[in-house]
């Protein structure tokens, strides 16, 4: 048992050790960016005190040739319009390049009035740059499908069965792109950072009809369908490795519905159980957290 304990400690040390990522390893690029960020940054401002050597040099010029001596009207200079280049967000609060993002979430459906498909999910992203990530994500639905009262009421009142579908799971590969970063001040007192991203990809979803039209005879197996997904989301950062995540994503797939007719004499023939195939949009609101690994990073970007 001591060996197991030691093994855990060793594993812990291995996991804990690479907890520092470099946000940018291109020193040359950093210098370029620095030059773009503010042309005047790092240079002494006009009118500011000059080093002794420079002062001495200027004095010498004035002594030798008074006409060449620089004459500055400081009031005029102060009133001059300075057009310094300023970025909307001067420094990214969180650098993501070469970091992993683990994103557990809970999702609720936004567009299915008939069956609730709430459930947990997990996303894993690897950030290739500060704005682009490749990742995988998945949802688990099976124990959480719920047939709403509304379906029962419609069946009872109008004697009409509405084909229903339940989901089991889905799994996707996706790319995430972050075009928007920003910050908010809360109550004029504290500042928090956020970003907005778009996400899209392709995957699979496992579904089957809930037998409504002829539940006595029909029983459906789970089938896997190709599903495309696209969405938008927000990261609201609590610190440089933890954020709340709110995402709305649409999973689009072809759904095979239950046949609303019961061919006489073929009630138990599975070939007659399926009806039309319908393009289905499953729009989900996903609320969760994001944890970025390694937990910290080193800035090599200009402020």
């Amino acid at each position: 048992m001591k060996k197991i304990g030691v093994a855990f400690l060793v594993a812990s040390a291995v996991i804990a050790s690479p907890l520092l990522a470099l946000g940018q390893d291109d020193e040359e690029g950093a210098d370029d960016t620095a030059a773009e960020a503010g042309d005047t940054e790092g240079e002494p401002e006009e009118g500011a005190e000059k080093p002794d050597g420079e002062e001495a040099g200027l004095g010498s010029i004035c002594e030798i040739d008074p006409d060449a001596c620089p004459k500055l009207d400081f009031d005029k200079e102060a009133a001059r319009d300075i057009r310094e280049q300023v970025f909307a967000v001067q420094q990214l609060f969180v650098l993501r390049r070469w970091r992993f993002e683990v994103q557990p979430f809970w999702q609720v459906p936004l567009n299915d009035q008939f069956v609730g498909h709430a459930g947990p999910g997990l996303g894993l992203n690897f950030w290739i740059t500060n704005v682009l990530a490749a990742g995988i994500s998945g949802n688990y639905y099976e124990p959480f499908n719920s047939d709403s009262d509304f379906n029962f009421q419609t069946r009872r009142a109008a004697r009409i069965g509405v084909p229903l579908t339940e989901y089991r799971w889905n799994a996707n590969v996706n790319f995430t792109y972050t075009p928007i970063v920003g910050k908010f001040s809360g109550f004029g007192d504290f500042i928090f950072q956020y970003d907005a991203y778009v996400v899209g990809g392709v995957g699979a979803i496992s579904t089957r009809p809930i037998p409504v039209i002829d539940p006595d005879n029909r029983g459906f197996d789970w089938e896997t369908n190709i599903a495309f997904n696209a969405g938008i989301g927000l990261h609201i950062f609590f610190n440089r490795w933890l954020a709340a995540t709110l995402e709305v994503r649409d999973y689009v797939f072809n759904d095979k519905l239950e046949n609303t007719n019961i061919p006489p004499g073929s009630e138990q023939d599975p070939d007659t159980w399926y009806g039309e195939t319908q393009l289905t949009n499953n729009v989900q609101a996903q609320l969760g957290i994001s944890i970025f690994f390694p937990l910290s990073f080193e800035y090599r970007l200009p402020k």
Partner: protein
Amino acid sequence: MLKKTTSNGREVAQRKTCASRLVGAVLGLAAFFGAALLPNEASAQEILLTGPLAGAGAVHNLRLYRKGRVEFAPTATFTLLDEYLRQIIVGARLNYNLTDYLAIGAWGGFSPEALHFEAGLVDRIQAVNEARGQNNAQRLALNQQPNLQNRLTSLNLGQNFADQLGSIDWIIAPQVTFVPFRGKLALFQSIYIDADLYFFAGPAIAGLTERADCSGPTSAAVGGCNSETDSGQVDANGDPIPIPNSQAFPMASRIAIAPTFGLGFTFYVNRWNALGFEWRAVPFARNTGGFDNHGTGPDGEFPDGQINSDDRDLKLNQMLSVSWNFYLPLDYQVSE
């Protein structure tokens, strides 16, 4: 410990070994998760408690887009998660911003018939309704009574299902708006705009159209709930043959008072105009399909052959608005 030879001693030794294993496992797990989850470098935003910025506000020279200004915002509001009828409500919001974080005002709008859009379920129900009508006509031609199933729906389905759907015709909501979050965002690190996030709440007064109250099995034309009409024909037994689902149900207007609340984003385009996106909920009970859902039996969960307030179900009535906001005076103030 293992050198003890008595059975009792062996048990003690085994117990101690188990206990030490358990402690070892717990310590190992604690070390594992502790090391994996705890950062080894402090990374939260630095708070300057001393120096020249001590006690300073988070933002200086803040553009006060709201303080002392009137906001007029034409809105287009889209209802969400509708079972039968999707609606667009056109309207406007008028706010006076007492401060940069507090405003009083009202939002209102109306939804004309042209901005009512039936959901796919309505078409599906009406298709079945019409198929039943054809079946009834065929049986009538043979002097036969309609199917029992078709007769049973006469309480709930009229000639055209779309004509009995409940709708929100107009709504007005005095409200207080609180703006706790104010910030900016950068698009592709080149375009930046100021933005705020606000919350609002207040009472809402909504004008609704729903299927009119009725009671009894007689024809809807005389105040009953049944959409059957008499065909004037009799079957082989001499009983009159009705035509089910052949009348339109009368509709009635009513006013519902409910709370409303929500949140929204404002994106300031320039000094005097902005784009807005807003989510709103107006929870109240309504009968969207015109069905007899409740009224009798345990907890009133069974149909009672009447249409009345018992048949309404509580709904959140969610809406999404887009707005184009204008601010007067045209220029804003700037904080210290």
